[in-house]
C-alpha cells in the first residue's frame, strides 16, 4: 500500500476457463492476456451477465463478562462462489452447469439423418469436481495489456436459477451457473480456495 495510483484502477470483463481438477495453471510470463491457457484448459463461451466472485466468511466471537465488545474473533467457515449466466444454450454447457451428470451424445449428419446432440439431467448424485479460472485485463502505465487471473483450484457447478424461454421478453435464453469452490488440501493454508494473479508489467529482458 502506498500513494494512490490510477494505474491500479481496473475496468475489465472476464472470460471463464475450465479444466479437469488438478490441471496446471497457465504460466504468467509465457501465456499473454487473451492467449490460450494450454494444457487441458478450455475456454467457456459467451456469457450474458458479468462474472461475479464472492467470498463468504463466517466468524465466531469470543466475549467476556468484563468487556462490552468481543475480545477475539476467528473464522469458522468460508466459501467462494463464481456466478454468471452462459449465453450459449448447448448440451455441453448445460452439462457444465450441472456438474456433468450425463455425457453429451452427438450424432453427425447423414443420409436421412439430421445432426443432433443429446444429454440428460437427473439421477446422478456425484458432482464432477473441476479446476476453474477466469481472466480479465490489466493495462499497465506503459499501455501493455497484462492478465489478471483468478484460479479456483477445485469446485463444482450448479444450475443457479431458471432457464427462461419466452417469446415476449426482450431477453434471450441463458444458463445461470454458480461455481462453488472446494478446499484443495494440497495447497498452502491461505490459498486453499482461490489464487489470484495480476501480471503488473513486461519481463525486463
Amino acid at each position: 500500500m502506498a500513494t494512490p495510483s490510477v494505474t491500479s484502477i481496473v475496468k475489465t470483463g472476464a472470460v471463464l476457463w475450465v479444466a479437469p481438477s488438478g490441471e496446471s495453471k497457465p504460466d504468467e510470463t509465457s501465456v499473454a492476456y487473451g492467449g490460450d491457457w494450454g494444457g487441458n484448459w478450455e475456454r467457456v463461451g459467451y456469457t450474458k451477465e458479468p462474472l461475479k466472485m464472492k467470498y463468504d466468511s463466517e466468524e465466531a466471537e469470543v466475549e467476556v463478562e468484563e468487556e462490552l465488545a468481543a475480545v477475539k474473533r476467528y473464522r469458522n467457515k468460508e466459501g467462494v462462489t463464481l456466478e454468471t449466466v452462459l449465453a450459449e444454450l448447448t448440451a455441453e454447457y448445460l452439462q457444465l452447469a450441472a456438474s456433468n451428470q450425463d455425457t453429451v451424445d452427438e450424432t453427425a449428419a447423414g443420409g436421412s439423418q439430421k445432426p443432433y446432440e443429446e444429454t440428460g439431467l437427473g439421477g446422478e448424485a456425484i458432482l464432477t469436481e473441476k479446476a476453474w479460472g477466469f481472466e480479465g485485463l490489466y493495462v499497465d502505465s506503459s499501455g501493455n495489456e497484462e492478465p489478471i487471473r483468478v484460479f479456483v483450484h477445485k469446485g463444482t457447478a450448479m444450475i443457479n436459477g431458471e432457464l427462461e424461454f419466452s417469446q415476449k421478453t426482450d431477453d434471450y435464453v441463458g444458463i445461470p451457473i454458480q461455481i462453488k469452490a472446494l478446499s484443495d488440501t494440497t495447497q498452502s493454508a491461505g490459498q486453499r480456495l482461490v489464487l489470484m494473479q495480476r501480471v503488473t508489467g513486461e519481463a525486463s529482458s
Partner: protein
Amino acid sequence: MKDVHKTISEFLLAQTTLTAKVDNRIWVGSEPPSSYKPTGATDRKAYKPRDDGPAIVFKVRGGGLDYEDAVLSPSVQFKIYGRTAINADVVYRVLCDVLHGGHDDEILNGELEMLGQLLYEPDTDWPYIMTAFRVMIRNS
C-alpha cells in the same frame, strides 16, 4: 483535470484502422472546420469539386467523475461524415471496432452508448452518422 478531448483525440489518431479511413481528419467540436467538404461540392475559390474524404468530429456531451475524482466518465458525441451515407457508415463501424472496449494507458474503457443514426445536415445536406460512447479515463 485531464484534457478529455485531447486524450480521446490521441487515442483515435493512434488507431491505424481508423486513420486509414479518415487520415488525421478527427476534430473536436460540433461541426467540421468550414474548409472541410465531404462531398463533390464546389470549392468557391478553386471552382472545382472537392472531396476531402470522411471525417469525425466529437465533443463531450455529459458525464462526470467517480467518487475519488480518479476516473473521468464523459459521455462523448461523435458525428461521422462521409461522401455518402454508406461511406459514413463504414467509418462509423471502424470507430466502433476501435473504441468499444478500446483502452490504452490513459483510457480505461470505451463503451458504445448509442447505436449510430443516419442524419443529414440541414444546411448542406451532408450525410453523417451520429453516435455516442461512454469513455472511462484515468484522471492522472
